[in-house]
């Protein structure tokens, strides 16, 4: 790995190496820019460092102190976080979906949320690039939305849980398909085909999963980028309206890395936190915050579920948890609320299942023990639903400080009325699907959320957004934000592919601007 000295003024200093930062680091390095990418987490080697153990793998989460409040405080630190080189994609469920084209113009076409300054046709091209880079294994033809090219790898053989979703969907008259997944169904380079170990959401120990960690990061390294792990960014230094570098904490001390451009890619909590923590007298409300929108419109996605029990064995833990999907309600607008959702087959591992049994169902003691014996017969459907952007949902700074002496984020969130309607609709639809296949003891998991978004939204003017379509901040021209924070709306599908597509587009735009001397 090439290493830069702190005095080297690198072209791009990227904070965070997940779907946004990792992808951007890879592409910018390949374009010939000098790149240093910081990550607060460790650089894990899956073959050596990952265990088949839910608890051990919590080392992939961002479990630093945060304050959560609001009407429905979010549980932070699990699946909605990541602290490792590769970011949360190291433990993502590999679900790689494209947005419905209309979502890029939610406000003008569908009547809610905000429009994106991006055109879906352009995004379609970058989705393709991301799908090729991750060799997505998906269905030969995808049943929803405009025609898309064939996925690079074929869909995996679906497991019983996936088949039960299909049977339910067919009974309801909905289309279903194999979920496009970022785990290879045939060899690819050093990646062996997936062996359906089922620990995907706790880090893939075989490298069959195509995450940032084993796709974009190696490409970045090969092109001369430096990945600096265990480096916590604390403050972006600005001189006037130009960023000059980043103060980061590594090996027990603070350092300063000089840079011509700074990209913040810390996801929807750490990105606004860093921008707010970097306030100066000239930028008293935080960097890139003239609009006052940094930390506003914080979103998550509804992740409620319905579970039941089958007479036959299901063994839902076998393989990736989400083999099949129905996006029916993302594309059908005959409903009395805004936004859409999809649902996917499920396969929680035993500890997670225990949490659901105690939390959502309230089982305890002998009743819990008895019911856990049904593990191999359980079946479930879990939604990924759109949450509407609401200025009242925010990430702000608390007065408390963390282990680095940095003010910790306060995450304020409440489901809105529309969100509740959408969730209610999904729970009743998923319940119908389980009833149709003869599941027994059906119960809903009414509170769960996952992916984050918003807090540094992209838009059309300096007044309506934090960054422009190129992820460049309106206020500080050499400060960029490239992660899920830039989403004006969040859509009803998992966001990682969209984040990567945005990063790919940003890289192309940066190259074009550099060529014209506009950086």
């Amino acid at each position, binding site marked *: 790995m090439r290493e830069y000295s702190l005095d080297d003024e690198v072209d791009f200093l990227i904070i965070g190496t997940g779907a946004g930062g990792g992808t951007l680091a890879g592409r910018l390095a390949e374009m010939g820019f000098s790149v240093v990418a910081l990550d607060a987490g460790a650089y894990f080697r899956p073959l050596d460092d990952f265990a088949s153990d839910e608890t051990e793998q919590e080392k992939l989460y961002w479990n630093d102190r945060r304050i959560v409040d609001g009407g429905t405080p979010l549980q932070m630190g699990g699946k909605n976080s990541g602290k490792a080189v590769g970011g949360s994609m190291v433990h993502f469920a590999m679900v790689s979906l494209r947005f419905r084209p209309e979502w890029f113009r939610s406000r003008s076409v569908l009547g809610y949320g905000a429009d994106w300054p991006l055109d879906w046709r352009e995004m379609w091209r970058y989705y393709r690039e991301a799908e090729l880079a991750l060799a997505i294994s998906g269905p030969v033809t995808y049943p929803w939305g405009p025609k898309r090219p064939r996925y690079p*790898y074929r*869909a995996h053989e679906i497991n019983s849980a996936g088949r039960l979703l299909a049977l339910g969907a067919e009974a309801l008259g909905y289309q279903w398909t194999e979920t496009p997944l970022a785990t290879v169904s045939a060899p690819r380079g050093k990646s*062996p*085909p997936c062996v359906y170990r089922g620990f995907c959401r706790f880090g893939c120990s075989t490298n*069959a999963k195509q995450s940032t960690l084993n796709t974009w990061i190696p490409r970045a390294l090969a092109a001369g980028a430096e990945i600096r792990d265990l480096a916590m960014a604390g403050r972006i230094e600005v001189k006037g309206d130009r960023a000059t570098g980043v103060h980061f904490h590594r090996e027990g001390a603070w350092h300063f890395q000089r840079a011509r451009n700074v990209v913040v890619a810390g996801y929807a909590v750490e990105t606004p936190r860093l921008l707010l923590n970097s306030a100066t007298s000239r930028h008293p409300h935080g960097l890139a915050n003239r609009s006052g929108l940094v930390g506003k419109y914080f979103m998550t996605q509804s992740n409620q579920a319905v579970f039941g029990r089958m007479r036959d064995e299901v063994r839902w833990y076998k393989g990736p948890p989400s083999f099949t999907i129905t996006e029916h309600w993302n594309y059908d607008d005959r409903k009395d609320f805004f936004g859409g959702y999809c649902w996917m087959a499920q396969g929680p591992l035993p500890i997670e299942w225990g949490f659901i049994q105690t939390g959502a169902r309230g089982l305890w003691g002998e009743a819990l023990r008895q019911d856990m014996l049904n593990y191999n017969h359980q079946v479930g459907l879990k939604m990924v639903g759109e949450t509407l952007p609401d200025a009242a949902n925010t990430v702000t700074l608390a007065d408390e400080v963390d282990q680095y002496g940095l003010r910790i984020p306060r995450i304020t969130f409440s489901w809105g009325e529309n969100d509740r309607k959408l969730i209610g609709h999904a729970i009743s639809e998923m319940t119908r699907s389980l009833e149709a296949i003869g599941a027994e003891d059906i119960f809903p998991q009414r509170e769960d959320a996952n992916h984050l978004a918003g807090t540094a939204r992209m838009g059309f003017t300096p007044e309506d957004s934090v960054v422009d379509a190129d992820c460049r901040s309106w206020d500080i021209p050499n400060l960029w934000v490239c992660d899920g924070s830039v989403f004006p709306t969040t859509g009803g599908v998992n966001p990682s592919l969209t984040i990567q597509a945005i990063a790919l587009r940003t890289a192309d735009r940066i190259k074009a601007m550099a060529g014209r001397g506009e950086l």
Partner: protein
Amino acid sequence: MPRISRAAPETQPAVQAAKRLNRGSAMLAASVLADSAMEHYRGGFYNPAMVTPILTSIAALSTSLHGHNDDRQRRHRQRDRLFGLTAATGIAGIGFHLYNTLKKPGGLSWQNLFYSGPIGAPAAILLSGLFGLLAERVRDTPPGETPRIFGLNAGRVTSLVTSVGLFATSGEAGLLHFRGAFQNPAMFLPVTLPPVAGALMGKATFGNSRKERRFTRFWLRLTALLGIAGSGFHIYGVSRAMGGWHNWRQNMVDGPPIPAPPSFTGLAMAGLAALALLRAHPED
């Protein structure tokens, strides 16, 4: 390149041709035996009927070898019956696999075609049986007469069966290699070489029977070689699965099937027999 040894000079051309067909059918049966044993073991013999192809292919293999060691110029009734049974098993197998594919959610979908019992696999044992049946009929020809099947020139009939078999087997390889996303360029070989051989055999079926067809024979030998090389490629393919050959007990079962490609070798051998038969008994 498999060298097809010539029978003793005193042996009748019809018997020679029958013996060559027996070798082709033996090769197919051996491929099916190893392949179905492994695949059905993988399926845990979930249905007791899954043992059938193993028994049938053992029968077809030994019957073919028996035929290969038999210089008599007449049909062997027991052998004929066994070949008939083999072919019938192949047809039943196709039916079974088709039924299992269609009953899954999604019906006739790529998912089900990729991952259910492959429809093309039982076709290989059907072909083995067919070549055995053809061998018995070819053998049963008085000296000086042209072997005939249902009144048709046996050379042409065998050519036709070979041609169809090559296309079908190539289709099967194509389906499964499509499932593997043609991730290695060598995966294109079985969907390019054998169809050419199939087309050439189609030409031989309906063309001038007096032509020497050196190019066709060359191409058949190439296809025979591909069948053997294919096993080599699949051995390499197994090494690319998680754990490689250290984890052979899992990867041989889940990886690319090592015994499957020699089906092409068996078909090419039958094709060469058909051409020899045509040359020995030309017709206008």
